[in-house]
């Protein structure tokens, strides 16, 4: 997901918990929200910072693959919709950095960790957007996968994170709809447009499945995150739900999901499908995806080129303060 490989700090097994830890866990079990000023185990705080930070970074790096097509959007209306969508993603980044700040980490510290490569963002944004149909596929599949993950997170135990998710989810469904709408137009269009749509699905299918993170059997410490209710479902549960939702949508478009082993399984009431190539996933996470260098490079460049701007505003604020003091 947007936070797909978060290392969870080990918690304390229930029998070894202090009274404070036990009281905390019981509040979570009762679905009470934990608020910023309240006591929390250090592992909970650290894990949340990683998860929210990774999510925030994904939102802002996520501006880039779609930003790549704003200048080439084929109609004024599509240009406006895409601009609004990418602007929303920047806004999501803002909400999430603010949520992380309530845990005692500043936006600048988190950005520093992103720029130095210490913190990650979702692997999906390291894939290129090659045609206009990719704007459709990204909205439909990537925002679709994001919704799948974020809707349950509206009930997450940390109050500021849960509230950020509620605001974000409202906007994500518009994102997915505009993407699917692009796909519908492409699939009803010329043979070239239809081919572009199929090609986009071919390229984005497996990377979208990777968004949910490694298979449950390979996810370390995921039970602790679930006990803390900062992870509400397992990776495989969400991936299954995503496939079950998406396959009929692809059929409606007249597109073929690029998986020869995809078939409905009556017994489990869901589709059987092929796993993505996890060695590719780990390679992309490690920095070797097709666009890692461009994406991170663009963010670092934006930050470095903008240093004079941020410093200039600070300098002005200092001067203005000094003038106010002098006038008093």
């Amino acid at each position, binding site marked *: 997901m947007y936070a797909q490989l978060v290392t969870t700090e080990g918690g304390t097994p229930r029998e070894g918990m202090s009274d404070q830890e036990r009281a905390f866990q019981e509040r979570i079990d009762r679905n009470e929200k934990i608020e910023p000023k309240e006591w929390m185990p250090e592992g909970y705080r650290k894990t949340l910072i990683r998860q929210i930070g990774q999510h925030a970074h994904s939102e*802002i790096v996520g*501006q*880039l693959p779609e*930003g790549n097509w*704003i*200048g*080439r*959007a*084929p*109609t*004024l*209306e*599509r*240009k*406006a919709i895409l*601009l*609004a969508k*990418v*602007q929303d993603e*920047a*806004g999501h*980044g*803002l909400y999430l*950095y603010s949520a992380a700040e309530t845990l005692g980490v500043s*936006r600048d510290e988190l950005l520093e960790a992103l720029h130095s490569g210490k913190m990650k963002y979702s692997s999906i944004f390291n894939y290129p957007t090659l045609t*206009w149909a990719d704007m459709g596929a990204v909205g439909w599949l990537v925002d679709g996968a994001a919704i799948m993950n974020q809707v349950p997170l509206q009930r997450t135990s940390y109050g500021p994170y849960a509230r950020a998710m509620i605001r974000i989810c409202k906007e994500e469904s518009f994102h997915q709809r505009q993407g699917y709408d*692009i796909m519908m*137009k*492409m699939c009803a*269009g*010329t043979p*070239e*447009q239809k081919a572009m749509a199929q090609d986009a699905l071919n390229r984005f299918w497996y990377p979208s499945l990777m968004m949910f993170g490694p298979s449950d059997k390979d996810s370390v410490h995921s039970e602790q995150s679930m006990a803390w209710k900062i992870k509400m479902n397992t990776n495989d549960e969400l991936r299954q739900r995503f496939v079950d939702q998406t396959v009929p949508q692809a059929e409606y478009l007249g597109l073929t999901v690029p998986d020869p082993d995809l078939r409905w399984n009556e017994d489990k009431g869901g589709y059987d499908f092929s796993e993505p190539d996890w060695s590719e996933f780990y390679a992309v996470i490690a920095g070797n995806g097709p666009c890692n260098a461009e994406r991170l490079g*663009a963010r670092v*460049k*934006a*930050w470095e*080129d*903008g*240093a*004079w*701007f*941020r*410093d*200039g*505003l*600070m*300098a*002005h*604020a200092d*001067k203005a303060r000094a003038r106010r003091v002098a006038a008093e």
Partner: protein
Amino acid sequence: MPSLPDVMTPALETLAPAGQPAPAPQEANRDALVEWLLRTGDNALILGQRLSEWCGHAPALEEDIALANQALDLIGQCQLWLGLAGAVEGRGRTADDLAFLRDAGAFRNLLLVERPNRDFGHTLMRQFLFDAFHLELLEAARASSDPRIAEIAAKAWKEAAYHLERSADLVVRLGDGSAESHDRMQAALAALWSFTGEMFTDDDHDRALADAGVMPLPSSLRPAWDRTVAQVLDEATLTHPGEVWQQGITDMGGGKRGVHSEHLGHLLAQMQFLQRAYPGARW
């Protein structure tokens, strides 16, 4: 697209007298009006396109959001102005046709708005110089005797007022900020100043609309713009460039008459790519 008969389209000949499509009523000053609408719509479109290039690359998240917001406002305005231009022109061209299927020589935007973004200081200074003009233009357009213009201008004016508030504020803060931000803003001002004169030149189309009471002459907007600019530059501790040779104001050209810089062709090559590569496709 295979050209199959479209059974849903009513046959035109059954609706209009045989072979004689009713001519659109000729508007008074039609050509001048279309010119003005293209100029105003193209300014919004080209500047919106330029601003959207910042998406994801701005110096702070708040700026990414603010610039995308302004770009959105401008694209929205251009849809209204170009839509009206197409309607007044009466040749069945939509706002999209005008945006995506004209070549550079048919664009009527000012040279200022097609200037490249360069650093964020250039982008902000260009925005401020334009916003200060845009607000005066829309202020006048709100009072136009043509209700269609007045209606669009009333909506656009509110947005332009906010844009000017923001760009003027940033010019002041960066001009009167650090030594580096001051120098960058001064350099941006120097680089852009010679593209401001074009905003206030009058030509025959302008005079026709002024005579008809549709819009005042561009030159009449100058004093208010001068005042705003002088006041903001002063507060920003920036030096006014004074008298400088101005681009695009001789009879030979200028963006208003379709003689552009080299930059516009590249901007259009990008913007129009899909419509040009897949003619007639629907998106």
